[in-house]
């Protein structure tokens, strides 16, 4: 089925939200705002008539996961997707992400953090849905919108907040900042300011995992790497080059597209010839999946399958999460281009509200349980701010310490000694 006929199908659907915030009229092929019906339409787009979730075929079946979820739910004895413990864990993680980002906004406007700060409000389901399934040794590679990925991966809120304040106790000693969160302990490989830059790094981490298993004979090494990036990145060469290499060598990686439809002020539909990103997976020989990124349970189901595939050595997966950021691109973005109707539509699909509803309706948790978590997280975030406030700023001596892993790289000075042997070197006053 070609795109044109699909567009026709979609446009005849009764409910569609047009992204009429587009003021440019040179793009006639405007896809209506993907709704829950879009996922249904996806089923009609599928080439195979089978409705089974089949991710094992090398040609890569494109599947809407909500179908799977619906099927599960339609069994006679409704089985729940999560246990109470899992539910509370997911809730807590999403609340942490939301509360932390809200606090970042406050702190930014109070002059405690500077530069470009990109907040994740609204997209928590993707981070929580994927990262909570990982082990500590699995790796996560992110973009500049990385605070919540760091928190989900286990980096303490204190370390992230300190890093944002530029203090030495930050996870990167204050040297990275908002867009460069790294944690060796938790295998968070960044934090990258240029889009697409992290995808090859993630591919490399997946390569190491395969190398460890096959060359270094660490037979049980099944570490998986997740690469998070946005819709804008999917038009970048590094994305395509890495899809090719990952599929070619069957690397244990999952490419997670956080499609929030906007790259600063550039609508995804204005920038992309074929906006359905998940279709690009099969072109490279891996499954491409589209999932509702505002629903943490759906994301988690897809993530389980994709991560499982990678762990079993079956290769990469491309997952497109339809999501939305409630705030502007960054705290400096006035966010004037997006249609208020579009924003309202997604605000109504707030992932935290949805999970809360699910937990309560299925008697997995009570209001009191959830309120307790809210309170706990508030305290964690407050504590993080206090900690960051009280932490020291980096002294001059820190300036040159991490330029080289081996500081002999600064070379030999005129006196014959290595520059790093100069006592003034650590003071940061030595000339290099």
């Amino acid at each position, binding site marked *: 089925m070609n795109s044109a006929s699909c567009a026709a199908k979609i446009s005849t659907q009764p409910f569609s939200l047009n992204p009429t915030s587009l003021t440019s009229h040179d793009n006639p092929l405007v896809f209506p705002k993907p709704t829950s019906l879009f996922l249904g339409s996806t089923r009609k787009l599928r080439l195979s008539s089978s409705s089974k979730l089949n991710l094992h075929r090398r040609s890569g079946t494109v599947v809407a996961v909500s179908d799977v979820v619906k099927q599960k739910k339609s069994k006679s004895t409704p089985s729940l997707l999560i246990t109470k413990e899992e539910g509370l864990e997911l809730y807590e993680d999403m609340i942490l992400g939301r509360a932390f980002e809200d606090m970042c906004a406050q702190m930014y406007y109070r002059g405690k953090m500077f530069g470009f700060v990109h907040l994740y409000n609204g997209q928590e389901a993707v981070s929580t849905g994927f990262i909570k399934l990982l082990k500590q040794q699995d790796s996560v590679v992110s973009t500049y919108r990385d605070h919540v990925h760091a928190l989900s991966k286990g980096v303490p809120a204190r370390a992230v907040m300190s890093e944002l304040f530029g203090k030495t106790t930050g996870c990167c000693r204050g040297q990275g900042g908002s867009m460069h969160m790294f944690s060796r302990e938790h295998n968070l490989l960044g934090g990258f300011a240029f889009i697409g830059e992290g995808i090859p790094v993630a591919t490399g981490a997946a390569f190491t995992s395969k190398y460890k298993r096959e060359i270094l004979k660490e037979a049980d090494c099944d570490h998986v790497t997740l690469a998070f990036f946005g819709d804008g990145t999917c038009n970048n060469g*590094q994305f395509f080059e890495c899809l090719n290499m990952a599929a070619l060598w069957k690397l244990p990686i999952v490419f997670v597209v956080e499609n929030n439809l906007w790259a600063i002020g550039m609508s995804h539909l204005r920038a992309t010839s074929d906006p359905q990103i998940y279709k690009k997976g099969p072109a490279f020989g891996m499954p491409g999946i589209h999932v509702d990124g505002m629903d943490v349970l759906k994301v988690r189901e897809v993530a389980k399958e994709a991560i499982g595939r990678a762990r079993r050595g079956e290769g990469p997966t491309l997952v497109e999460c339809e999501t939305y950021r409630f705030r502007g691109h960054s705290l400096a973005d006035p966010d004037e281009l997006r249609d208020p109707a579009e924003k309202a539509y997604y605000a109504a699909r707030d992932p935290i509200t949805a999970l809360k509803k699910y937990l309560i309706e299925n008697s997995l948790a009570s209001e009191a349980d959830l309120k307790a978590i809210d309170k706990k997280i508030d305290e964690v975030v407050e504590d993080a701010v206090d900690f960051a406030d009280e932490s020291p700023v980096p002294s001059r001596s820190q300036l040159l310490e991490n330029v080289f892993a081996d500081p002999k790289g600064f070379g030999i000075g005129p006196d014959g000694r290595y520059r790093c042997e100069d006592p003034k070197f650590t003071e940061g006053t030595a000339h290099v």
Partner: protein
Amino acid sequence: MAAIFQGVGAAAALSSSPSNSFDSKKFVFSPCRSFSVRKGASFAVVRSDGRVNLNPKGRRAQQLISNAVATKSDNAAASSSSKPGHELLLFEALQEGLEEEMERDPRVCVMGEDVGHYGGSYKVTKGLAKKFGDLRVLDTPIAENSFTGMGIGAAMTGLRPVVEGMNMGFLLLAFNQISNNCGMLHYTSGGQFTIPIVIRGPGGVGRQLGAEHSQRLESYFQSIPGIQMVACSTPYNAKGLMKAAIRSENPVIFFEHVLLYNLKERIPDEDYICNLEEAEMVRPGEHVTILTYSRMRYHVMQAAKTLVNKGYDPEVIDIRSLKPFDLYTIGNSVKKTHRVLIVEECMRTGGIGASLIAAITENFNDYLDAPIMCLSSQDVPTPYAGTLEEVTVVQPAQIVTAVEQLCQ
């Protein structure tokens, strides 16, 4: 010094003739070398006149290793007994270094275009895929930016990759990864991740390869904080620097030259490395310091013959470490001769020579009797026509003229 030189002055010219094959015996100037047996820790400096300089100021001494490159007189004496070491070409020396490091450490791997089955466009990785397998010697698709980034990601997570750019010029496509990730990630991660990667490839002006295949990227990369750059010029230092680069925890960009791959030299059998941060004394002298690297070393040595016949005594230093500069060796030389000539293949604007002039002027201005002269390639895209290409790079005649001018 001059006496020693003339004694072995029968060495033939190392000209930029069509033949690419050189005989190592021509390198008979008893170069003063620094050796390190362990990774960069210590060495002894053997000077050309036989004096051994232990404990050069500030460095820890180690055992003495005799001059590995046989001088002509040594050859004559030892012709009856088995000569030490083995003879090979520069690309074989690189391969040997790579192979030994891959045997020594299973985390060392190679990635690049045609490095595996094809054996490398200049045969540096020949035979390695058969020996170590297709994953350790990885044939990549043509995606420099991404596979360099992949190498960086692999380095961050515990491997020690050697990334080959089929031609150094192709690494321009990987500039994003080299500048942003290779150089920066150790710093922006607060020291958490090391990137022990080696990025290597052939560069420089070849024989009518055209503008895009004749690029010198030293100048483009030199500003990137966090990386080291070295340029090899002999089989001996090629192998030594390759091993040192692989063992280094820092990211190293390793410049080879297309026209030097067939140089022949006798190198030691035993394990050795060359210090990444040090320059190499090629020919000690008194009148003028000539600083050079890579292929221009040979043009300089050819000019040196002419100069010696004219009565000059040039001191030739192969700086080897393009970033950082070895200001100790260079400084000592400047303090001795008071005149500096830089001969490089880099472009004039913003090249290695430009940085070197700045560094020397800043540190040793008082010792200079004349302004520093720098001979670089012309600021033109390398023309295809042979006659034009010849005048794009510095030729020995120009070097002779420059020295004469400098020493007036």
